[in-house]
C-alpha cells in the first residue's frame, strides 16, 4: 500500500525538516513493511471491537473545579480567554 509522507504529515500536523524526513520516512517504511504481515489475517465480516471492561457509573451531580488552577497552567491568556491562532 502506498505511504504518502506529505499527506500523513498534513493529516497529523507533523511537519518534518529535510534531515528528519529522510530518517523518519526510512524508519516508517521499515516498520510498515514489518507490520504489513497482519493485512493478510482473515477477520470476521462484522468488525470486533474489544470493549474495555469496567463500569460507567458517574451520577449527574455537579462539582466545580478550581478553574484558576487550570488557567495558571496555561499560557497566552487574554481576559480569561485562551488566545489561539485562528483558522483561515
Amino acid at each position, binding site marked *: 500500500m502506498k505511504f504518502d509522507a506529505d499527506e500523513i504529515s498534513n493529516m497529523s500536523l507533523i511537519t518534518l525538516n529535510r534531515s528528519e524526513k529522510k530518517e523518519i520516512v526510512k524508519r516508517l517504511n521499515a516498520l510498515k513493511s514489518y507490520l504489513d504481515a497482519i493485512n493478510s*489475517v482473515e477477520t470476521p465480516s462484522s468488525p470486533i471491537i474489544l470493549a474495555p471492561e469496567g463500569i460507567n*457509573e458517574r451520577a449527574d451531580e455537579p462539582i466545580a473545579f478550581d478553574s484558576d488552577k487550570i488557567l495558571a497552567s496555561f499560557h497566552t491568556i487574554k481576559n480569561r480567554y*485562551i488566545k489561539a*491562532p485562528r483558522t483561515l
Partner: protein
Amino acid sequence: MSSGIISKGARQLVDELQGGSLEASKVFETYRKRINELTKLNAFITSLEYKPNARKEGSLYGLPLAIKDNISTEGIRTTCASLMLKDYMPPYDATAVAKLKAAGVSILGKTNMDEFGMGSSGENSAFGPTRNPWDIERVPGGSSSGSAVAVSARLSPAALGTDTGGSIRAPASFTGTVGFKPSYGYVSRYGLIAYANSLEQIGVIARTVDDAALIFGVIRGKDRFDSTSTDAKPVSSNTGRLFSGGHFKGALLPQLSDLVSKDVREAFDSSVAKLDSEGIEFAEERVEELELALKSYYVVACCEATTNLARYDGVRYGPVADPSRDWKSAISESRTMFGKEVKARIMLGSYMLSSGYYEEYYLKALYIRRNLKLRLLKLSESYDFIYTPTMPVLPWKIGEMIDDPLQVYLSDALTVIANLTGAPAISIPIALKKGLPVGGQLQGRYGLDDRLLELAATISGLLKFRGEPSI
C-alpha cells in the same frame, strides 16, 4: 549511617520510620544527597527538596519515592521527557500520586524516560539518555529508565513506573531490579499521561517483590476518575488453578526462543533447571496466537498514540502556537518539538487509522489481540504462570542500535504479551551474564495479582539472586 539507610528496602524503612528509629527528613536527605552525587546516570529530570508530609499516621509515612515523569504531580513539572511539555505544571495529582501522598510518601523527584513512553532503551529522552549503573556506557532499558536506574543505583528505595509494552519490566530486567505491571485496571490511570491507553498501567519498580507488593497495595483500587479501574476480585469459578501445597506449574513458550540471545538463554535455562529441581513443574506450550502479537501491539499502540498526542498543539501549554499565524501552520510549528520516535509513531498511527487502512491494520490487530487474550486465559486454567526471559538480549551500548530501530522494537516481543492481554506480569532478576543482569518474567492470570506476587516472592527466594551495581 547514610550507607545504612540506602541499603534498606522500602518495607524495612517504613518499619523503622514508624518505630521511630529513623527520621523522615534524614532518610529523604540521604537519598537526595546521593541523587546529586550520581547525576551522571541522568535518572532524574526534576529532583525535589524535602517537603515534610503531614500524614504521620499514613502506612508509608516518611518513605521517599521517585515518580516517572509521565505521572501528573500537582505543582511539580511533568515533562514526559519531551520538549513539548518542558515547562508543563499539572494543576492536579494523578490518583496513584494522591494515594501515595495520603499514605505519607514524600516525592524525591521525577524520573527520566523515553519520550512519552515510546522506547525500550531509555535513549529517546529530550533530557538525554539514562545510563545503566551496571555499565554506564549501556542502556538501562525503557521506557521507565530513570525509575529503574534510581532503584538499582540506590537513589530511591522504590519508584513508580508505567508499562505500555514492557516499560516497567524491560528496565527492571536490564538493571537487576523487580518490575511489576499489575492487571489492566487495577491501578487508576487518572493522571497518567497517555501514550496507548488500552495497554498501559502504572506499576512499581522495587528492590524486592515484597517492596513492590507494599507500594502496589497502596496505589491499587477502583477510582471514580477512571471508568476502566476496578477492585474486582475474580469469582472463585474464575480463578484458574488453585495452589495445592505449594506445588506450582509454569508454562514455557519455546517458540519464542529464536528471538533470545545465547547469553540470555543460558541464564534462563539454568533458572528453569534450578526451579525444576526445587519442585516447580514446567511444561512447554505452543501458542499459535503469539506469532503476530508484537505486530498487533505496534499497530494498536501507534493508533492510540496518534489520538492521545493530538492535544499537544501549543495552544494551552507547551511551545506557544503563535496566535498571529494561521491555525494549521502555527500548530504544526509547535508540534515540531516532538522527538523523532514520537513523530514516527504519530504518523504511522495516523496512516493506519485513515480510511481504507483502518480495516487493514487496526481492526486486524484488535482481532489478533482478542484471540491471544482468549488463548492465554484458557492456558492459565492449566498453569500458575507463564515463564519467559523478560528481555531477549543483554543491555546494549548507548547509540549502538540507532540505525536499526526495528531491532529495538523486536526486543519488546516477550513483554508486550501481558499488555495485549491485560494480565499481571513481573520481572525479577535471575542471574548476571558478562557482569550484566538478566531478568525472568512471570505472567499470571488476569486479576490474580496477589497470587502472582506471592509466586514471584517464592521464586525469587529459590533463585537467591544477590547483587547490586558497584557504583
